[in-house]
């Protein structure tokens, strides 16, 4: 069974700064993989190297066995791997429906005709609970709704792999619960999810497996419970003085 995403020795350097160092991991299809690490650890950069049109300095990325190293963002999306952005970027002057329609009309390997794309967009809105807001301008949405729109847009591209970048940041506990439920619902549809998160409670709850990045290196990989007890991980977050707990 081919892994959904395979990363081999992925490295990204910006001038003298090494943002991602020699990351090798295989992410199996289905299930939720959490990606955590302190601020500046290189998590978003890793996402961008995989799907965001940023060419790695070394290493390869494969999607279901297909080489996608350095592919442009739109090509990777059409192949089936879509990413959401940490700072949500809705198309401000388009309605919620039109926002999702962009994903429906352009994502995916088969181009959807006008009516089918629209139907797909409506279905995604229904699924993500945004149907009531479909004709509202995206600029008027609340933060929680914008985060959901970001996910909805990505879902409309019919991905097999979805990379979520801090979709829970800035949400109230109630909104967080709703978002967690949505992520589970997406997983139940068979979509492989990799999520960057800082909200520990949620990511430990959701993930089948957790990867920990620190200074661009993968320092831990395993079940949530194992990773939280890993001394290197604790040190990465809290510093050496707290290393022994």
């Amino acid at each position, binding site marked *: 069974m081919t892994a959904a995403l395979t990363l081999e020795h992925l490295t990204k350097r910006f001038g003298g700064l090494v943002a991602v160092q020699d990351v090798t991991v295989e992410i199996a299809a289905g299930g939720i993989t959490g990606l955590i690490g302190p601020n500046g650890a290189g998590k978003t950069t890793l996402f961008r190297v995989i799907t965001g049109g940023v060419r790695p300095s070394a290493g390869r990325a494969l999607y279901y066995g297909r080489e996608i190293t350095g592919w442009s963002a739109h090509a990777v*999306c059409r192949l089936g791997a879509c990413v959401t*952005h940490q700072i949500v970027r809705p198309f401000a002057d388009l309605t919620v429906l039109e926002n999702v*329609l*962009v994903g429906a*009309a352009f*994502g995916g390997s088969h181009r959807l005709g006008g009516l089918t794309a629209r139907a797909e967009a409506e279905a995604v809105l229904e699924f993500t609970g945004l149907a009531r807001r479909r004709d509202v301008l995206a600029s008027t949405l609340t933060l929680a709704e914008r985060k959901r729109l970001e996910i909805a847009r990505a879902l409309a591209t019919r991905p097999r792999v979805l990379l979520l970048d801090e979709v829970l940041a800035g949400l109230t506990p109630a909104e967080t619960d709703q978002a967690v439920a949505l992520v589970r619902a997406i997983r139940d549809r068979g979509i492989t999810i990799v999520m960057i998160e800082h909200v520990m409670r949620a990511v430990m709850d959701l993930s089948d497996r957790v990867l920990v990045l620190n200074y661009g290196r993968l320092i831990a990989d395993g079940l949530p419970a194992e990773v939280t007890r890993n001394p290197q991980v604790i040190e990465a977050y809290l510093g050496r003085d707290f290393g022994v707990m």
Partner: protein
Amino acid sequence: MRAARPAALAAPVIGILLALVPVIAPRNVSLLNLGFFTFLYVARGVAWNILGGFAGYISFGYAAFFGLGAYTTALLWLRGWAPVATYPLAGLVAAAFSLVVGAPTLRLVGPYFSIATIGVGEAMRILALNLDRVTGGASGLNLPTTVPSKGWFYTAALVCAAVSFAIAAGVRRSRFGLGLQALRMDQEAAESLGVRTALFKNLAHILSAFLVGACGGLEATYLQYLHPDSVFGFTESISLVLITLIGGLGTLWGPVLGAAVFYAVQDYLLASYPTLHLLVYGVLLILILLFEPKGLAGLAARLWRRMQVSR
């Protein structure tokens, strides 16, 4: 993708009414002239808006396409071609050139693209001035004087405007148009959703350059004399920017309104100073940028909404 019902009918109706003018008043030369120039401005403004308004790339160098189209028609006409046959070719030459300059420059972000287009436009003008064996250089190019009637020119320009408008309307409601709007609002987000932004930007550029080039051919036939400073001039480029910005950037009817007002003002003030209308436009543009970014179309929409509410 939010086409208003009334506007969808308005366009063909207005078009038909305008088309009847040469039938009703075939000898009213000043009216036919007014129509000719206004329709050509509409055609070019609407075309420019496809790249400037829909895709959000403000070009100050469209005179290059206008001039290329004009000279293509001129040179072929002098070699015995029927002018009408040259218009599509004029468009194609302009489109080809737009691909050559567009591919590298469209990669630049907004304001830098705009600056680069000023350079390209002006460089073309200077080249045209210097390639005297081809273009006649500073002494200009004299063209054949057997031309159709003013009525014919009026109708031809109306056709150009109609075609341009129809294409822009079609783009606006299509998937292509949605992609352009998305990339205007947020290029990276659009890319991450599968929009081929580089391809779409260049397509918009080529399409609008084609239309502007064809208009150039028609204008050359009318003028019967070409000089690089007129068709390649910076004033021509900024006219298109002004028309669309004042009329309403990104709207469908904006450039139409803008062109009508633009030409009317220009015609009225032409007697006093050749570029005084630009002073009026400068002030108008400042006011619009400060208070009503959607231009005259935006103002009209606001008034319309206010009238609806007060009923």
